[in-house]
C-alpha cells in the first residue's frame, strides 16, 4: 500500500494591485469612468462614504442585497406563522401545541397573528440584510482587510486595478491615473 504523500503547502502567490489615490469625489468618479472606458480591469474602488454614481461608473451590476432582504423577510413571516399556528392550534396524536382560549376567540385567529407576523418579517428582514451586507463587503468578524490603503476610511478615494486582468497595460494605466490628479500611484500587496 503506497504511503500517502505528505501534503505540501503550495507557496501562496501574493497578489498585487495598482492603486491610485485621490483627494476628491469628482476625481474618483472621473478616473473610474475613464479607466472603464479604456477597458482596463478594475478590481475595486474604495471611498470613505457612498459616492453616488460610482457603481454606475464602475459598471457594477445591481446589488443582490435586495434578494437577501426579501428572503429574510419571508423567512421571518414563515417563522412567525409556524410558531403561532403550532403553539396555538396544532393538535395531532404525536405532537401538539397548547391551544389557549383567549376571550372566546377561535384557536387559529389569523387576525391576532398579524402583529407578530409583521414584526418578525421586519426583524428578520432587517437583521439578515445587515448580515448580508457585512458578508458582501467582506466585513464579517474574522475577515482581514484584503487591501490596506492609507486614508480610504478618512479622506481619500482610491481605485485598484488588477495587473493580472485582461487588457492590463501598465503604462496606459499609470498615465490615466496620473492624468486625473492622483496623489499617489503604487502597487499594493494583498493581505494573505
Amino acid at each position, binding site marked *: 500500500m503506497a504511503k500517502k504523500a505528505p501534503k505540501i503547502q503550495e507557496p501562496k502567490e501574493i497578489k498585487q494591485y495598482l492603486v491610485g489615490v485621490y483627494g476628491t469625489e469628482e476625481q474618483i468618479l472621473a478616473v473610474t469612468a475613464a479607466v472603464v472606458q479604456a477597458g482596463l480591469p478594475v478590481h475595486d474602488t474604495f471611498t470613505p462614504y457612498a459616492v*453616488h*454614481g460610482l457603481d454606475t461608473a464602475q459598471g457594477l451590476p*445591481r446589488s443582490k442585497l*435586495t434578494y437577501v432582504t*426579501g428572503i429574510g423577510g419571508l423567512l421571518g413571516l414563515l417563522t412567525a406563522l409556524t410558531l403561532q399556528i403550532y403553539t396555538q392550534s396544532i393538535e395531532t396524536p404525536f405532537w401538539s401545541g397548547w391551544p389557549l382560549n383567549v*376571550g*372566546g*376567540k377561535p384557536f387559529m385567529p389569523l*387576525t*391576532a397573528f*398579524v*402583529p407578530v407576523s409583521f414584526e418578525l418579517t421586519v426583524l428578520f428582514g432587517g437583521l439578515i440584510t445587515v448580515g448580508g451586507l457585512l458578508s458582501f463587503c467582506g466585513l464579517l468578524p474574522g475577515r482581514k482587510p484584503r487591501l490596506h490603503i492609507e486614508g480610504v476610511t478618512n479622506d481619500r478615494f482610491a481605485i485598484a486595478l488588477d495587473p493580472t486582468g485582461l487588457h492590463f497595460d501598465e503604462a496606459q494605466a499609470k498615465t490615466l491615473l496620473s492624468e486625473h490628479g492622483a496623489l499617489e500611484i503604487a502597487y499594493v500587496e494583498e493581505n494573505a
Partner: protein
Amino acid sequence: MSANSKTATPHAETPPAAPYRTPARLRNVALGLVIVGAGLFAWTLSSQPWRAWANGLIASYLFVSIAIGATVLVALTHVAKAGWAVVLRRIPEAMGSWLPFGLIALLAVTGLGMHELYEWSHPDIVAQDELLQHKAVLMTPNFFLVRLVVILGLWSLFAWVLRRNSVAQDKDGDDRHTRANVAWSAIFLIVFGLTVTVASLDWLMSLEPHWFSTIFGVYQFAGAFVAGCATVTLAVLGLRRAGYLPQVTTGHLHDLGKLMFAFSTFWAYIWISQFLLIWYANMPEETGYFLMRREGAWLALFASNVVLNWLIPFLTLIPRPNKRSPKILAIVASLLLVGHWLDVYLQVMPPVSHFAVEHGGDVHAHGPFLGLQELGPVALMAGLFLLVVSWRLGRAALVPQRDPYLVESVHHQQ
C-alpha cells in the same frame, strides 16, 4: 449670504418650461363629466334623495381629501427641504387650489343633505336618545357647519400661501420665499394634525354617532395622503406624456412610487390597528361598525378595500423596475384611487342606507349599491377638479423657475 444666493439661482440650468395650457380635449372631457354628473345627480335627487346626498358626500370628501393630501405632500417636502420634489411641486400646489372649491361643495352637500345624512341633526331622534343628548353640545347643525368652514378655510389659506410664495419666487428668485415656506409648512402641519381628526370625526364618523374610534383621524389622513400621492403621480405621468415636464426623470417617478408604496402600507397598518383593537375587545358599542360592513354582500367590498388599497399595490411595487415603469405606476395609482373611493364609500354608505331604511322609509335601501347613482357625483366633482387644477397649472410656470433646490432636483438620481 442672501445677495450671493440670489446670483446663484440656477435659471440658466433649465430651459424655461413650456407654459401649460389646458388642451381642448381635456376641457371637453371635463365639461362632459360635469354635465353628465350633474344630470345623474339631479335624477338621483328626485328618485332617491338619501342616495344622492350620500354619494355627494363621498364625492366631495374624496376630492377634498386628494387636495389636502397633495398639500400635505408640498408641506412635507418644504419641511424636510426635500430637493428632489421641486420639479414636480407645481402639480400638488395646483391641486391644493381645489380646497376652497371643496369647501363650497362639502358645505353644500352637508348643509342641504344634512337630515338625510346625519342622524344627530334630527331633534326628535336626539330627544329619545340619551347618548346623542350628551353629544349634542358638539353635534348641532350650525356648529357643525361653522367647524367645516373654519377647518377647510384654514386648509385653503395655507395651501394658498404656500403656492403664492412659490410662484413669487419665480419672479424675484429670493431665498426668503423658501425659508418662509418652511415656516408656513411647519405651522400648517401642526394645524393640519389637530384639525384632521376633528374634520374626519365631523364629516364621516358622526354618520354613526353611537360609534367611536380614536384612530379614525389618522386613518382618514392615511387614505387622503395615499390618494394625494396617487393623483400627483397620475398628473405627472399625464403631463410627461403630453410633452411637458421633460425634467422629470425615472428617478422622480421612482420616488413617487416609493411614496405610494410606503403610505399604502401605512394605510394598511392603521386599518389593521383599528380593526384589531375592536376585534380583540369585542365590545358591542364598537363592533357595530364592522358588523354593519360585513353583513351580506358588503363583505365582498369590505375585503376588496384591503386588497385594492394595500395588497395589490404592496406586491406590485416591491420590485425596483416596477416603481420606475410609468405604465405600472399609472395602473397602481389608478387602483389606489379606486380603492380610496371604495374606502370612503364604505365609511358613508352603510350608515346612511341603514338610516334611510329605519327613518326614511326606503325599504329598498339594503345592501351595497353600485350604479349610475354612484358615478354621478364622482363624475361631477372629477370634472370640476380637472378644470380647476388645470386652470391653476396654467397660471404659473410648470416648474418652479428659481428655487434654490432646483439644480438638485433636476440632477436627482435614484
